[in-house]
């Protein structure tokens, strides 16, 4: 492997982790969605680079899906939903920014230690991609648990899924990557449509998942 191609792949995957960190401290919905769009663009670049160095043309499709669907369609859709629902105020974070960032650093350290330790014999590029991917997945989970707002939970889930796509493209020659990324896009489309069509706002009077939680049928 040529040094430069490796460095570029490394740079792109690393930037993806960095953008995941940026999501942690966004306290406005619009800003969060914009950062997510950036996340998707970096993912598309990273996947396209993998497609180029692995000479795997089908991965360009995955990159295109990431660029068109996740970086443009979904963010635009979410912007409109937020405006319709009239919830472009601050995000109520369940945990403060400081502890969240510390937890994020802890998770990234954990995934680096874990993945680099268990994959000493794997291809160095795939190995680092996997470590970065796990970091992104864990940071996505962190976004989901620290936010109480349904839309920002969806954004957290989508960033988590970007981590999965990174892992799948990093695993050289993995079959079904395109199919899986399409399946995931459908899943996400369902979620976004769900937020909107199931009228979570109307039905629950708020997109705050804390309010959804009040109904349990047994707390009386």
């Amino acid at each position: 492997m040529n040094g430069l191609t490796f460095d570029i792949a490394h740079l792109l995957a690393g930037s993806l982790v960095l953008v995941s960190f940026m999501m942690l401290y966004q306290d406005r919905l619009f800003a969060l969605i914009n950062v997510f769009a950036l996340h998707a663009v970096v993912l598309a670049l990273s996947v396209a680079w993998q497609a180029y160095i692995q000479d795997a043309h089908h991965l360009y499709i995955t990159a295109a899906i990431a660029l068109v669907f996740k970086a443009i369609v979904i963010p635009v859709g979410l912007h409109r939903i937020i405006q319709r629902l009239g919830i472009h105020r601050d995000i109520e974070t369940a945990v403060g920014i400081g502890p969240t960032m510390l937890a994020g650093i802890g998770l990234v350290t954990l995934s680096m230690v874990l993945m680099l330790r268990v994959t000493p014999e794997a291809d160095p590029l795939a190995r680092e991609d996997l470590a970065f991917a796990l970091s992104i997945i864990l940071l996505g989970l962190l976004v989901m648990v620290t936010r109480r707002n349904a839309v920002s939970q969806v954004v957290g889930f989508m960033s988590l899924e970007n981590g999965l796509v990174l892992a799948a493209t990093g695993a050289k020659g993995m079959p079904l990557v395109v199919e899986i990324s399409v399946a995931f896009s459908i899943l996400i489309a369902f979620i976004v449509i769900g937020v909107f069509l199931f009228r979570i706002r109307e039905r629950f009077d708020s997109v705050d998942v804390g309010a959804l939680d009040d109904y349990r049928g047994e707390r009386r």
Partner: protein
Amino acid sequence: MTAFSFDAVAAILLIPAAAAAILAALPNYKMTAIVNVIASLLTLLAALSLFVTERPAPGQYLIVDDLNIVFIVLNTFVGFTTSVFSASYIAHELETGRLTAPNLRFYHAMYQIMMFGMNLAFVSNNIGLMWVAVELATLTTVLMVGIYRTHEALEAAWKYFILGSVGIALALFGTILVYMAAQPVVGEGTNAMVWSVLIEKAAHFDPALLSVAFIFLLLGYGTKVGLAPLHAWLPDAHAEGPTPISAVLSGLLLNVALYAVLRFKLLLTASPEAIGPGPLMVTMGLTSLIFAAFMLYRRRDIKRLFAYSSIEHMGIIVFAFGMGGPLANFAGLLHMVMHSLTKSAIFFAVGHIAQVKGTQKISEIRGLTESHPGLGWALVIGVVAIAGLPPLGIFMSEFLVVSSTFARHPWLAIPLVFGLLIAFGALLLRLTGLAFGEPRGGTAPVEASYVPMYSHLALVFAAGVYLPAPLVAWFQHVAGILG
């Protein structure tokens, strides 16, 4: 002969898929209910024909072996009886106006897509395809859980969706790691995701990577099995959706996820240096069992009560498979079959009970054996069975789990028996209130279909009294495969 046997596998996939397309196009709800039943029956017959026809060699995508035949037959059988129950249940929902005709068209099409997804997950030989199939089955059930469009149903569907998606994402990461572990040995490409190839070469995989992969897979698919602490979606989804869906969720979908876990457990067992999957599964199983047993006491909603009971029983099953060995695996397998049959029978009864009483609150349902003897006694037999009293089938499988635990790890038997007794107490306590005493609530006569529930209960009873030798031999053989 080979051509015909290929047809059997194709049939269990194509019949539901074709039926879904037809059902989506048919406007008449009575007709769709009948078509749904017929399609489910045909799928069941196709599944049964797997026993007699010659099996195709495992391909890159599909496989039929002794392990999955048990699951497929159970799946299609409960799928068929549930479709019969669903027809009478749905007719009532339409009368009371909780569902409309377009809803039903959607519901029946989704039912068949769900059957397709579950059957595909069982026959898939490719771990990527299996993942897609489980996702498909999950998505359809999410849509059906939310079908009433009430505040509660939407919340349940949303919660199920988010937790299910996180679970499925973790499972995919585990799947990718398995591929990474397999790739240096098997080589790049589809072969490194084909289960029958993986199992042969698993001994040469990197054990550390495989171990990490299994943890992700166990957490991911474990979310769908409903193992504590990842079970939060399960009670809501059971309580708020239509009851036929509660029956297939408990009776079938949990088994699909369990089956995925078992397939990967086999990979781990084949690699001697990887961590043993047993202790992890035993811990999660016991946690679920004891947690759910205590949660049973505080339930006020009848469907929620039995949802927690499903968590409890999945805990027992995962515990048994985690113990491993021929006897514990046999017990786990038998328990899984008995639980599917009993729990779906209970939900059939509960569905009609909730309809005649107009409520799901336990406190408002009393004296069922007096007001509706048919339903009341079905519930009594079902709960007695699920609580693990002799002479019904679950008693036998629980007894086997406990005795095999005593024989090998006596210390583990203490928390196991403790959990079983706690759950037993809770269920009987609730049952006395529900079934006996002064009748309360609606007393309208019920147009229930008794055949599905009583046929399930009869099977459970028969299994408790006498298991035919060929069946025992078959289960022993499968238990042997599971290692």
